[in-house]
């Protein structure tokens, strides 16, 4: 008797929808594991840097030897310009290190040695700043080398051991992020400021799209389950009006949600501006127009999501099957969510770039980061592309609405045939 009940429970619970959830979660964890694995591999690599050590002497030689050991030197010479050019040319180049003449002399006189660092920041994704993080650690180790040299020198030749000996250098750093030169900040600090864009936006966009998509699919499923769809389709109104009505209704709710989200997010961003780093001073703030563009990008992507949800909703027989049909949208939203979280659009491989562009959900996820760097072209292209794909989808949906498939069901007709 017990087994009888257990068997019944298993049959009830192990439906295609629960199996689909398990599969989606498995794929999700698998992809996350791969990304983390890639991050670990990245962390093992030596950072590529350029050095311009104009100071002469034993300390300069010791520093150069240490850097040769710990990094890949793409340039080692006297020209700052050539060093920076070589760094830019190398797509893995992280920073240009400049040691001016008189560095060792300053240290000997008890003053800190100035280390000029010109960082190149390629992206603000979580994986984009791994190499600059490693280099920061290398600089700390370089300080130890300098400290050791100063102590050895004091021991051998006598002299004063300065108070700076354990922390002998002062870093003067600037970061070039795309076309912007951001003073006094390293890529890691900038990434910390932009972390909201790296994580919060993709997650929020995915949630909005999933919520909106699920609304449409459920609405279609309920229309079929409650037999209200048949009534609606016999009303003297064009099928295109019915389709647009459904999409626009859900989009209005989605827009409402998006507007609330944007207001909330503005406050969230403001909290960063009010803190230690002023985004406006760094030129990383967004204007009202930028926020409007982000909203439009989100709305156009939402329209695409709702259209694809409607297309899937046509296949739904009832409310329960409608729930299962939300998973493809979830999957489609999760791909760009994880990709944009870990990488910038510019730092991914061309094939991944193409995938990101093709999925309209990527565009609002990346819009804020693009606009921070004044890259309006990609944002507007993304909006245009999303709207064009939506228009095609709506045309397909209207066509299906004019066929028997809506009543007989696409899958059932195929099975019969």
């Amino acid at each position: 008797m017990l087994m009888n009940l257990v068997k019944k429970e298993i049959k009830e619970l192990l439906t295609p929808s629960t199996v689909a959830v398990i599969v989606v979660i498995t794929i999700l964890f698998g992809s996350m594991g791969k990304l983390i694995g890639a991050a670990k591999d990245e962390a093992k690599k030596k950072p590529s840097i350029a050095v311009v050590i104009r100071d002469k002497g034993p300390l300069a030689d010791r520093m150069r030897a240490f850097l040769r050991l710990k990094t890949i030197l793409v340039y080692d010479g006297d020209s700052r310009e050539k060093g920076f050019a070589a760094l830019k040319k190398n797509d893995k180049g992280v920073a240009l290190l400049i040691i001016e003449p008189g560095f060792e002399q300053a240290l000997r006189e008890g003053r800190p040695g100035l280390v000029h660092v010109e960082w190149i920041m390629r992206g603000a994704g979580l994986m984009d700043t791994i190499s600059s993080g490693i280099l920061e650690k290398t600089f700390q180790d370089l300080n130890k080398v300098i400290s050791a040299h100063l102590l050895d020198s004091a021991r051998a030749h006598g002299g004063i051991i300065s108070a700076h000996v354990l922390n002998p250098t002062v870093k003067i750093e600037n970061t070039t992020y795309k076309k912007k030169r951001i003073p006094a900040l390293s890529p890691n600090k900038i990434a910390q400021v932009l972390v909201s864009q790296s994580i919060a936006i993709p997650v929020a966009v995915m949630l909005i799209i999933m919520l909106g998509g699920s609304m449409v699919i459920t609405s279609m499923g309920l229309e079929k389950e409650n037999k209200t769809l048949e009534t609606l389709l016999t009303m003297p109104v064009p099928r295109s009006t019915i389709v647009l009505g459904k999409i626009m209704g859900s989009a209005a709710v989605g827009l409402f949600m998006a507007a609330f989200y944007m207001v909330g997010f503005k406050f969230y961003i403001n909290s960063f501006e009010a803190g230690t780093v002023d985004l406006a001073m760094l030129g990383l703030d967004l204007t009202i127009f930028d926020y409007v563009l982000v909203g439009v990008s989100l709305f156009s992507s939402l329209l695409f999501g709702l259209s694809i949800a409607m297309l899937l909703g046509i296949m739904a027989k009832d409310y329960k099957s409608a729930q299962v049909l939300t998973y493809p949208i979830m999957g489609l939203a999760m791909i760009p969510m994880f990709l944009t979280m870990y990488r910038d659009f510019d730092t991914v491989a061309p094939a991944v770039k193409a995938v990101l562009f093709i999925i309209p959900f990527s565009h609002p996820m990346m819009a804020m980061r693009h606009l921070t760097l004044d890259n309006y072209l990609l944002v507007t292209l993304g909006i245009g592309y999303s709207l064009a794909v939506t228009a095609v989808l709506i045309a397909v949906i209207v066509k299906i609405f004019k066929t028997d498939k809506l009543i007989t069901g696409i899958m059932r007709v195929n099975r019969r045939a």
Partner: protein
Amino acid sequence: MHLLEVSGLTKSYGKTTAVKSIDFHIPAGEIFGLIGPNGAGKTTTLRVISTLLSQSGGTVTVCGHRVDKEPHEVRKAISYLPEEAGVYKNLRGLEYLEFIAGFHGTRSERAKMVEDGISIAGLGDRIRDKVSTYSKGMTRRLVIARALMTRPSLAILDEPTSGLDVVNAHEVRNIIKRSVSEERAVLLSSHNMLEVDYLCDRIALVASGRIVEAGTPGGLKEKYGCTNIEEIFMRIMETESHADEPGQKRD
């Protein structure tokens, strides 16, 4: 002119033919009933006439408009009530009637439609309550009201009293009977032979996608020497099952 003309109507789903070249017509002022067992093709026929499904062959004309050529014009002339038709649960009864009226006529016509709908539904103050609080009988009265309040030239009702108790079914039948006028007609399908006998001016018996018998309830009773439609139905079905046996020739 007939309000509905069905000629050689055929509907196939892949290799399965659900409706096989059926012909019938409905003049104004008539209630016409399609009766038959489950899967006979009644609902498919009603769905083709209602422009929900496309026909595979033949022609269907409603008020002079072909369903395949002018579906929008046909939709203006009909009102279709699917079997077990539902309502949007979050709407109130009145809101649902206003929603449906919103697809028809001018503002004043719509107000009149809603007024008529309230009267046909006969739900009293409950018309202002959410549909989710309605009983099955109340919901059915509401959807019947929505189907008839627009004064369609042809009301197409699929199993209008399906699942209703005796009192509600009786009331719905009376509503249908009252809705027919000189300019309007009703096409309905039903399993309930007593209902068909009471409501319909003419009936057609559908089996395996074909009309196997048609006429007035009185005429058919006389022809078969039966006292009620149910007997006629059983006798025809018996003949049909023999005709379908291997080796038997069908007329």
